[in-house]
């Protein structure tokens, strides 16, 4: 069931080189396994993230447009990125630069101007819509049996809907659908799009502790054993800062926080090493063992003669 | 009075009484400001508009003609605007043959409740005509010699 290969320009985003190495790796592994070709944007630079748009919208657009222009030069219409923050900036720049007057101002800051004909899409959207659930389910080798997860989309993967044009802005389902298709049990998580505190971790850890803490305790109450994210910043806040959140909430969590691509990779039979589970701060060991155990049971039942 | 030199161009509108004329009224009641070029001729139904009226108006030296009726299926006379649409489509195709820029004629549908839409229609059409500039017809023919009855008499009962 080999489908014609999809090919996209690919914009990894800065955190992929550091704090979200495992997201970066697992993304590439999953795309490879699903025959999605990722062509890196040559000499890509930072989109400016939150700090840029808090300073000025033209500067912010220019920082993103430098990369969009490179995508144009690659003659690709669509660029994929795993990071919602990069995605928002790329899409916003693209959208605002549809206005000639604004485009001119932004291009003034650039060596190579951006003409404005590139669509930025999240890896999640590409997997959900371009690859599709059928293909994903069919390619699942090790179903994620015995895994109860709370998918958390973060605040800007789908919002504002007019700009992001993907999934339901109040109750997104893309990750739910993918993980379910791969055999995981998804618990209904009501705060799918609530903010985790974003980039305030360093300057105002109290903000992140409170907000991420709330997400973790609600996910826990919902009966999940782990959270699944699609955002480097969310993952870092929920995983690396889980201790800070715990003390803020006076709760204990010990709650693994995966990137959805890591779990997909697992189901697709990619080696755990390639998926960088060792990079997670809260050890996923217990959860991974549970999946493996459930898998063995399933196998035994399916092998003939073992019924006796 | 003569068209205000430089300021205005001569734009004639044929509007059906029940929808578009009412829509223009609604725009007025809502004080939706519009360009002053347009002069509205009121007819009972867009189905009453003979393509010949439009041709004569344009050959008479008007710079633009705007026709507006009820939305399809919403005609006060059930099917008048369907006849209108058919006739006006044909006309649009024939204007170039007569050497008239088809951009000088548009037809649209505006209901009695759509004051804002009417404002938009008038504004954009007026801009469109100003973009095309004054009609060359006048220069060529001079002002239209006068509309001899195309057919029929003043009163049929004659």
């Amino acid at each position, binding site marked *: 069931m080999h489908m014609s290969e999809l090919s996209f320009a690919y914009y990894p985003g*800065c*955190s992929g*080189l*550091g*704090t979200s*190495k495992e997201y970066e790796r697992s993304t590439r592994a999953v795309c490879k396994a699903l025959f999605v070709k990722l062509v890196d944007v040559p*000499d*890509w*630079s*930072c989109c*400016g*993230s*939150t*700090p*840029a*748009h*808090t*300073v*000025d*919208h*033209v*500067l912010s657009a*220019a*920082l993103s447009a*430098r990369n969009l222009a490179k995508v144009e030069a690659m003659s690709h219409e669509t660029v994929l990125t795993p990071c919602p923050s990069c995605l928002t900036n790329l899409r916003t720049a693209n959208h605002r630069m549809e206005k000639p007057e604004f485009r001119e101002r932004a291009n*003034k*800051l*650039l*060596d190579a101007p951006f003409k404005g004909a590139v669509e930025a899409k999240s890896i999640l959207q590409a997997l959900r819509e371009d690859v599709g659930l059928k293909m994903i389910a069919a390619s699942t080798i090790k179903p994620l049996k015995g895994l109860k997860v709370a998918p958390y989309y973060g*605040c*800007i993967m789908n*919002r*504002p*809907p007019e700009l992001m044009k993907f999934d339901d*802005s*109040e109750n997104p389902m893309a990750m739910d659908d993918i993980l379910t298709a791969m055999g995981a049990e998804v618990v209904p998580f009501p705060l799918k*799009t*609530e*903010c985790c*505190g*974003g*980039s*305030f*971790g*360093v*300057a*105002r*850890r*109290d*903000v992140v502790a*409170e*907000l991420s803490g709330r997400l973790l305790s609600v996910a826990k109450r919902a009966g999940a054993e782990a959270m699944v994210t699609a955002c480097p910043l969310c993952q870092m806040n929920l995983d*690396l*800062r889980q*201790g*800070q959140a715990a003390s803020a909430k006076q709760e204990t969590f010990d709650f693994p926080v995966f990137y959805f691509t890591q779990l997909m990779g697992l189901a697709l039979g990619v080696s755990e090493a390639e998926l960088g589970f*060792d*990079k997670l*701060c809260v050890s996923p060991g217990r959860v991974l063992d549970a999946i493996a155990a459930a898998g063995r049971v399933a196998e035994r039942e399916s092998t003939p003669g073992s019924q006796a | 009075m003569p068209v205000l030199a430089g300021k205005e161009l001569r734009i004639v509108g044929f509007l059906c009484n029940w929808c578009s004329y009412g829509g223009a009224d609604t725009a007025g009641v809502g004080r939706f400001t519009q360009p002053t070029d347009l002069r509205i001729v009121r007819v009972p139904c867009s189905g009453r508009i003979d393509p010949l009226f439009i041709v004569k108006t344009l050959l008479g030296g008007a710079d633009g003609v705007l026709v507006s009726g009820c939305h399809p299926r919403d005609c006060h006379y059930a099917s008048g605007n369907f006849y209108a649409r058919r006739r006006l489509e044909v006309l649009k195709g024939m204007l170039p043959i007569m050497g008239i820029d088809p951009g000088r004629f548009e037809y649209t549908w505006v209901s009695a409740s759509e004051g804002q839409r009417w404002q938009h229609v008038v504004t954009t059409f007026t801009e469109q005509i100003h973009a095309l500039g004054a009609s060359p017809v006048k220069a060529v023919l001079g002002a239209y010699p006068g509309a001899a009855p195309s057919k029929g008499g003043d009163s049929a009962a004659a």
Partner: protein
Amino acid sequence: MDVVNMNASYDADFVAKVQEESEQNLSLCYQCGNCTAGCPLNFVYDIPVSQIMRLAQAGQKEKILRSHSMWLCATCESCTTRCPNDIDVARVMDVLRHMARREGYVSEKAVKTFWDSFLDSVRKHGRVFEMGLVVNYVLKTGRVWTDMDLAPKLMPKGKLSLTPHPIKGTEEMEKIFKRFEEQGGCI
């Protein structure tokens, strides 16, 4: 509380500027409070976002630019997404931040410093060098103990590289920022 004299304190230029830069019509706001209701950051705001909108309508520049709220807005887009009048509230908050910077109001120094350090890093290397960013931030703020508790968690994971990965077009990046400043942009 003192009387707000509208004749004296309504700053028309400010209102006009906010509307122009945000491309939003402030008078669309009818104060339903939906933005405040859904704002996750409200608990650290000194003025709730719906009141920021009200103050903006009322041209109360001083009060707004002195507030902490817009510095603590995470641009999570709840307000923009749920506004019954389709106002891009998050964008208004962004624009207010821009103004505060330009006019030298900084109610949340640490936040600003972090963002500045971030952009410094981008300017220098083309991509964010996380380690350098934090160090830079610590030096500027003197907050030596920032996230020290995290270091032991992070280090062994080999996530934080100790050297930047500069891009080829670094001088191109520098130019972007230079041109921005030359056009009167302030960072």
